[in-house]
């Protein structure tokens, strides 16, 4: 088939798009890296499939996970997806750092196309397929438990959101083996990503994977917002919600408003590429600046979608491990809301150099600096929460402390970049790369890892190994400073981002340090995975059936670990902020409820996995111009939903007697557990029942 011709059955598909079919020298390092990555993925997938078959896990996977509408299981699947994708994106970062360190005065070992794909997939994956699923999974698990709900408002929609995100991730993964990826960076700016300069299918893969994930996130935002507005337990007023639930509300609102501009931008780019439209072309009245405008109208609120969950995590971690209620709760809520609103007023600072007037730049520069104020309020509130608290330096708390210091540095460099005159100099330099990694690694990644340490016992019923957690923490912290502080220096020396070859020998020492840092971060990730694996092995010794290993404050700690599918045997009545702390203080924790009721839960549904397959095929078909398949996939998405709407039995009932049996067995078990003091909480005696010791009175 000649290139460019569209076969009606297979579209543009051809054997040469397979990564193993190489052109040029097949033994070059460049090809070995590409083939190795693709091979690793295939072998990894085959090993996983083999293991599933040997262990007979396919049926449980379908029955207990893929078709489940339980918000807790959906949350876990989101996080699992995020971790798989993170492994790839970190590996890519190491390859890029190695290339840059090897390419001072020499071409290095990667070709330009491959290098471009690497920074594009690294950014795309980290934002859309690591950060978004990680925080969505965490909010999915924690938020309904914190507000005393049985599930989110729309459990099926929740599963569909996950399916859309997973379909997008699958498109990116397939491009590792077949077809390749965009070289236009995670922002995909035209005209470079237009059909004229990027004629392959890489940009199309980027477009459809990102579009699927952004629709999934919009639906997640909708679902969480309705849950928070309509599904709180009796007495759980807004100002009694834990801060993590507050940030979930803010993030949901941001998702509802901010994902739409991304969808609009990618659809316009797709129309330019597929149908010869002129939104962003250089001719016929097209205007590529509108792309930057639309993209960052999404992109800047997105930054706060990523950062705000971390602020929620730190609020929970710091108050729990200081044994105090949060200092300045209302100011923290207000600061979160102010940040959410301001996040929509600063998008132009991503393109100060585009040529608008100095006054416009000044206004957006000032708006950007203003965000420093509510963020500062938060830092002070956390510090004052620690004052006179009974602080324990557990792994999440260590992350919190390193976060506060590191995030402050990143924030200061952000205020520097917010000044348009300075931005003109640093624009697109490694200084910028250092800045946003300095915000997102402590302000997102550290928070997620801390959150895993903190809530893991609640999810699976056993704690994570403390020693490996500490090793992993030190590798993350040291690795971050080694990897990114040199980039500030390089930026000041004039090094530009996304450069694959250098001519200035004085860059070498800094690039070498950054490479060591990247390897450190890779080791940190591997230690983190090892920590989980070791803990799974030692799960009996680390079990915390009591469900309250850290002497928690909010409602989720009042539940068994792991949490039963119906969450609360009897829905709680909330009378105060930090209700579980109040219950423990007043001796009302773990009381036998007077009466139980039947609990109605959503039945499993195969709709989400069907939609996953259908949207993946649609995305793949659109990428490769296989029109019949695209239409078939689009129709197939709606079939399970339409059929389901004709049936009325979507719920199953757990009888009150069964709830009573389970709950009272657990209460008896808790009563028999030793109540442990805080100093023993990382030791083997901790079985999840805390001898409550909160510092101070009411704040």
């Amino acid at each position, binding site marked *: 088939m000649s290139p460019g011709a569209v076969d009606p059955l297979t579209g543009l598909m051809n054997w040469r798009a397979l990564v193993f079919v190489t052109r040029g020298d097949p033994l070059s390092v460049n090809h070995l890296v590409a083939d190795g990555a693709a091979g690793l993925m295939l072998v990894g997938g085959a090993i996983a499939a083999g293991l599933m078959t040997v262990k007979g896990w396919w049926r449980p996977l379908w029955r207990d996970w893929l078709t489940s509408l339980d918000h807790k299981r959906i949350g876990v699947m989101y996080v699992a997806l995020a971790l798989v994708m993170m492994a790839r994106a970190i590996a890519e970062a190491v390859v890029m750092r190695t290339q840059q360190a090897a390419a001072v005065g020499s071409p290095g070992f990667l070709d330009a196309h491959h290098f471009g794909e690497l920074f594009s997939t690294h950014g795309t994956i980290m934002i859309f397929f690591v950060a978004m699923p990680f925080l969505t999974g965490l909010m999915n698990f924690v938020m309904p438990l914190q507000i005393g709900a049985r599930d989110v408002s729309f459990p099926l929609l929740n599963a569909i959101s996950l399916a859309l995100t997973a379909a997008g991730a699958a498109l990116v993964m397939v491009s590792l083996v077949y077809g390749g990826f965009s070289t236009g960076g995670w922002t995909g700016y035209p005209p470079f990503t237009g059909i004229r300069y990027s004629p392959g299918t890489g940009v199309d893969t980027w477009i459809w994977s990102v579009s699927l994930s952004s629709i999934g996130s919009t639906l997640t935002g909708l679902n969480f917002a309705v849950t928070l507005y309509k*599904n709180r337990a009796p007495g759980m007023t807004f100002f009694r919600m834990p801060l993590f639930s507050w940030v979930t509300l803010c993030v949901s609102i941001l998702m509802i408003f901010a994902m739409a501009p991304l969808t609009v931008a990618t659809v316009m780019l797709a129309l330019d590429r597929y149908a010869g439209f002129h939104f962003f072309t250089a001719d016929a009245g097209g205007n590529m600046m509108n792309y930057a405008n639309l993209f960052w*109208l999404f992109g800047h609120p997105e930054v706060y979608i990523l950062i705000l969950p971390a602020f929620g995590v730190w609020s929970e971690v710091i108050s729990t491990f200081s044994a105090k209620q949060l200092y300045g709760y209302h100011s923290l809520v207000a600061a979160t809301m102010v940040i959410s609103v301001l996040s929509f007023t600063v998008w132009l600072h991503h393109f100060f150099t585009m040529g608008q007037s100095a006054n416009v730049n000044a206004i957006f520069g000032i708006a950007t600096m203003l965000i420093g104020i509510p963020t500062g309020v938060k830092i002070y509130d956390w510090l004052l929460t620690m004052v006179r608290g009974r602080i324990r330096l557990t792994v999440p708390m260590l992350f919190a402390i390193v976060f506060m210091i590191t995030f402050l540095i990143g924030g200061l460099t952000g205020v520097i970049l917010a000044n348009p005159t300075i931005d003109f100099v640093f624009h697109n330099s490694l200084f910028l790369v250092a800045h946003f990694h300095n915000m997102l690694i402590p302000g997102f990644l550290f928070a997620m890892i801390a959150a895993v340490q903190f809530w893991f016992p609640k999810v699976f019923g056993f704690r994570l190994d403390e020693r490996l957690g500490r090793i992993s923490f030190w590798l993350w912290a040291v690795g971050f400073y080694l990897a990114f502080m040199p980039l500030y220096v390089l930026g000041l020396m004039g090094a530009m981002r996304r450069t694959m070859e250098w001519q200035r020998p004085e860059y070498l020492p800094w690039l070498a340090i950054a490479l060591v840092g990247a390897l450190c971060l890779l080791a940190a990730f591997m230690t983190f995975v090892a920590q989980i694996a070791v803990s799974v092995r030692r799960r009996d010794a680390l079990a915390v059936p009591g469900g309250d290993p850290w002497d928690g404050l909010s409602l989720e700690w009042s539940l068994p670990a792991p949490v039963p599918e119906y969450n609360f045997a009897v829905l709680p009545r909330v009378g105060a902020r930090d209700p579980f702390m109040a219950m423990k203080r007043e001796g009302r924790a773990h009381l036998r409820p007077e009466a139980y009721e039947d609990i109605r839960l959503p039945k499993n549904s195969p709709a989400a996995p069907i939609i996953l397959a259908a949207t993946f095929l649609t995305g793949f078909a659109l990428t490769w111009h296989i029109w019949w398949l695209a239409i078939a996939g689009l129709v197939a998405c709606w079939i399970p939903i339409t059929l389901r709407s004709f049936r009325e039995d979507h719920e199953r009932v757990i009888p009150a007697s069964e709830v009573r049996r389970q709950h009272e067995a657990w209460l008896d078990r808790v009563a028999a557990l030793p109540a442990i003091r805080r100093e023993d909480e990382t030791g083997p005696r901790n079985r999840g029942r805390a001898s409550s010791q909160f510092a101070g009175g009411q704040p």
Partner: protein
Amino acid sequence: MSDHASAMADREHRHPGLNLDHTDPEGHASAEPVIFGFWIFLMSDLIVFALLFATYAAMSTQGTGDGPAPAQLFDLRIPLLETLVLLTSSFTLGFVSLANKYEGHPRQAIGWLVVTLVLGAGFLALEYHDFSTLIHEKHAGPQVSGFLSSYFLLTGTHFVHVAAGIAWGMVLIVQQAVLGPTLPVKLRVMRLALFWHMLDIVWIGIFTFVYLSGVLA
């Protein structure tokens, strides 16, 4: 205490949609999250339209390239007819809502729903004719200029929405006939109505900012 509790319950059960409270109190609580969630979806969808309008506003003045300007292409006759057809369909959909609210004869709801969808299809036919005239007779397809790209995307997105509404409505006609006016079906009709009315509002925006301003410019 019980007074207070019932006052609380009243407040908590008020929902932003067609009020079911008097006719269908048991359906009220379950309607609340669904209708509220749908309002949020509409809000997000309106952001899409807002951005398409904004893009159109910029491109219709600065993005005509070598192609025609709005004043050379548009006249108001067909768009006015389209407006009347679409607004009438919103009116007839109101009768579906009323029939469901006051538990009228099931055939009443189905009949008005059919009328609504036929009017919707008439609107699509008119708009298709409009598109086809632009592309084939006036040689002003979306590939001609940025202005025409943004025109076709704005009106085309609205077109696709109306088409989706018709497909959805056809499923609901079957459901009204097979399942009868059960609570889930009534709530679905209510959401279709919200969706349909929103599309009307968007169309009024299109008529005003695209056709009327285009002709006046």
